């Protein structure tokens, strides 16, 4: 890499940091303590820099946001959940090999999402199922139920909100993380 290339890259990084650092600190402060935030940010910009050296990144801002979020989540998981999780799993792992336990977890998660959708109010559930499982368009659903497109959007919004809450409430890992925060 030539000297001018490097200068150019430095300038881009400076500009990117100027744009993204304040909102990232603000957003990350809801998840992590201050010293963790600094670590996450440093690592984020380092990853951006390395990738950018390989070839230009299309949407730098979005890229940086996503990397920071992933780092923050994995950090959360490591520090807050690991201990509790390991204690939990120590007993399981003696009997169940990993492939089986991951299938088990997958089924449990599927069941969780299925339960979430099953517990939606009637019309909301029908809209959800027609859209996601029968692949009907909003237009088609609008004809079937005689409701407006706007109403369908509202049902989907409501349904997703409900699913997310259901999952958050019932996901055991999350509960542990929340308790320890």
């Amino acid at each position, binding site marked *: 890499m030539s000297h001018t290339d490097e200068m150019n890259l430095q300038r881009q990084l400076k500009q990117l940091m100027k744009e*993204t650092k304040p*909102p*990232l600190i*603000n*957003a990350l402060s*809801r*998840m992590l303590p201050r010293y963790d935030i600094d670590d996450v940010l440093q690592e984020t910009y380092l990853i951006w820099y390395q990738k950018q050296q390989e070839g230009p990144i299309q949407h730098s*801002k*979005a890229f940086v*946001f*996503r990397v*920071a*979020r992933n780092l923050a*989540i994995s950090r*959360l*998981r490591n520090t807050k959940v690991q201990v509790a999780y390991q204690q939990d799993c120590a007993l399981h792992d003696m009997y169940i090999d990993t492939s089986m336990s991951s299938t088990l*977890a*997958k089924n449990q*998660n*599927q*069941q*969780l*999402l*299925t339960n979430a*959708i*099953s517990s939606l109010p*009637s*019309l909301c559930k*029908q809209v*959800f*199922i*027609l*859209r*996601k*499982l*029968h692949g009907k*368009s*909003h237009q088609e659903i609008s004809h*079937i*139920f*005689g409701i407006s*497109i706007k109403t*369908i*959007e*509202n049902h*989907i*919004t409501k349904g*997703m*909100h409900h*699913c*997310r809450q259901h*999952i*958050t409430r019932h*996901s055991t*890992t*999350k509960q542990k*993380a929340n308790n320890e925060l």
Partner: protein
Amino acid sequence: MNFDEWVCYGIPEHISHDATMWLAKLDGDSLSVDEKIDFYTWLADDPQHQWAFEELSELWAKTALLDNLQNEYKPLQLVNAIAPELISTLEEFAPPPYQSYLPFLSLCLVTIGLLASYL
């Protein structure tokens, strides 16, 4: 399936609500140019907007993989399930029963009127 990454952890409720709203709109694929600009502006506005939207999109995509739900709701059952609701909405819009007698009634009145004028 790992839900931890798709439930907008640590993101304020109003943001995930807005993200779901955009998701539903985009799913309908009927956004105007102005709305599209609004959407991209909103998305770039705050990292939390992007996080919420991406994570909920993931959740939204995964719901299509629930084969056990698919078995639970066959199209035929679906029709049965929606029928009562359809009927109740149709009844709301149906004319009250006396309306069907109105033409007959008016004809009678006209006849009586004509007869009265002859007498």
